[in-house]
């Protein structure tokens, strides 16, 4: 039997050695390469990284949404049981019932031919014992909960009659219908403008508190992370390169890539300063060499970086880094 890794607190979700690969075994393209992280009850974990770093794929693999020809390996313990080894019926009970997910593009993630109300009631039908009248009442309640005004009349609207922010709220209402313990949010605010983005993030935080959920928030926006998350895992080229409490990482990053990311955030105050960026491009999946994937772009690089992929190790309490030069990085 597979057991969840022992720890002080029992994590809700525990991902171990998650790996997603495409292509043929001979020419394998590894998009997610041995990702480990835990999600504690009631915690908001941020998963940050640039496009192609494997963060969305990681999230989708948790619920076994990634289909062949992609090959998924590793273990995903959900309250002690490995989702990767569950029977299909069991996975379906976890999906929606215990773990819910919301998507980046709320328009395309809602079924255009069903009303919002029908889509909420459908989830209630699948995962609760409520009768027809109960489902209707609960659906209105859920729309109220996510802050859709005049919910009683809007419930029979189709998704195209909603604005972008309202669609994302509706999407959240559908996801919450079955009282999930964990919400996976795949760039939930990327498609929205800044004011709506702020409202949606506040909504997610309020729901987390009121419903005692955990949240995994995938984003490329460090501002969103700073505003919302308790802990942060930074991904680069399919690996977690640094993980720890948001405050610690923002105060003192311990990986050269995280440092580069934080430095590239435009700061208020100093006007007309050039934006600093990380030189070079992320590596192609087909172009992975033996060592640290960030080494070709890293200002702290030493010869050892090219020898082997540095493992993610604890460098401070609750704080892990996969950087050989983390001490030097920390001194910056």
């Amino acid at each position, binding site marked *: 039997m597979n057991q969840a890794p022992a720890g002080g607190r029992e994590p809700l979700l525990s991902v171990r050695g998650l790996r997603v690969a495409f292509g043929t075994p001979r020419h394998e393209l590894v998009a997610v390469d041995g990702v480990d992280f835990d999600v504690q009850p009631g915690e908001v974990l941020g998963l940050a990284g640039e496009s192609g770093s494997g963060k969305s794929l990681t999230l989708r693999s948790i619920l076994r949404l990634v289909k062949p020809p992609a090959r998924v390996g590793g273990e995903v313990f959900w309250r002690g049981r490995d989702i990767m080894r569950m029977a299909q019926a069991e996975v379906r009970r976890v999906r929606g019932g215990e773990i819910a997910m919301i998507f980046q593009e709320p328009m395309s993630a809602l079924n255009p031919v069903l009303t919002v109300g029908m889509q909420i009631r459908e989830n209630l039908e699948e995962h609760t014992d409520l009768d027809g009248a109960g489902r209707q009442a609960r659906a209105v309640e859920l729309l109220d909960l996510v802050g859709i005004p005049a919910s009683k009349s809007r419930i029979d609207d189709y998704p195209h009659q909603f604005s972008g922010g309202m669609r994302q709220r509706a*999407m959240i209402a559908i996801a919450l219908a079955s009282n999930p313990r964990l919400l996976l949010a795949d760039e939930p605010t990327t498609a929205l403008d800044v004011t709506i983005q702020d409202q949606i993030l506040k909504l997610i935080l309020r729901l987390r508190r009121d419903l005692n959920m955990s949240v995994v928030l995938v984003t490329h926006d460090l501002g969103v992370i700073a505003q919302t998350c308790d802990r942060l895992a930074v991904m680069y080229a399919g690996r977690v390169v640094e993980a720890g409490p948001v405050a610690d990482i923002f105060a003192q990053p311990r990986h050269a890539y995280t440092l580069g990311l934080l430095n590239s955030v435009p700061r208020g105050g100093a006007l007309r300063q050039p934006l600093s960026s990380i030189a070079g491009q992320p590596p192609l999946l087909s172009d992975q060499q033996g060592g640290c994937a960030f080494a070709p772009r890293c200002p702290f690089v030493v010869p050892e970086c090219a020898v082997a992929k540095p493992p993610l190790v604890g460098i401070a309490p609750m704080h892990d880094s996969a950087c050989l030069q983390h001490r030097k990085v920390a001194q910056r």
Partner: protein
Amino acid sequence: MTFATLTSATISRAVGRRWTLIIGSILLGLLILVALVPGFFTSYDPLAFDYKAIMQPPSAAHPFGTDNFGRDVLTRVIWATRIDIQIAVFSTVFPLVFGTIVGTLTGYYGGWLDAIFGRLVDLVITFPFLVIVIAIVAVLGPGLVNMYIAVSAIGWVFYAQLVRAEIRVQKQSDYAAAARVLGYSEMRLIFRHLLPNSITPAIVYWMTDMALAILLGSSLGYLGLGAQPPTAEWGVIIADGKNFMSTAWWMSVFPGIAIVVAGVTFSMVGDGLADLFRRRR
């Protein structure tokens, strides 16, 4: 006042954009009405011979004239509507339903099921449609029922192709992923979420296909392979009149016009629906 102008403007804009659908639907309604109660529109018997009135040109008593047995052509064209609408429906309903189911399943599951289906499609589209239908009817024997069988045996393939292509697109969509994430069963995902989003092209094609079915039914009737004389069917009536074209043009021309009207009606409804659905997207 303002309200009145506003609403009339709104209505005229709605009509202006959808006139094909509106006119097509009105014509289709008329056709169905004629097919349901043909006796209401004419007092003659479509099969009764009248040797006192043979091959009379159009007149007040016989607006479309009479044929070589003295039958009223208008009456026969009206009664034929029932048979031809029946042909339109019966030779397309099975292909629509069966083709949609096959297309949905092959599109969603792919794999060996899809491979077999693909070869079957290749096989069917290698033959000209009319030729293969005629071949099947020739084997089974002439008649309407055998024509339905022949058309259905081939026609479902086209619906299946349309639905399959659409399902393959839809199953990659975010809302399909969302439905999977909500823990819905595959059957629910396929038939409640994917199919309603994929069936539009098939419905539009269905309308066109009904027009084609009427043409096909008439062609086979004309060739003596579909409805059998003395049944009033547009193709049969045209065939009856073909030997008298130089002396009694009305015998073939009026059923011909009826075929054109029916074909245009179904095409207009099909086009109108296609437009409507496109705008919805």
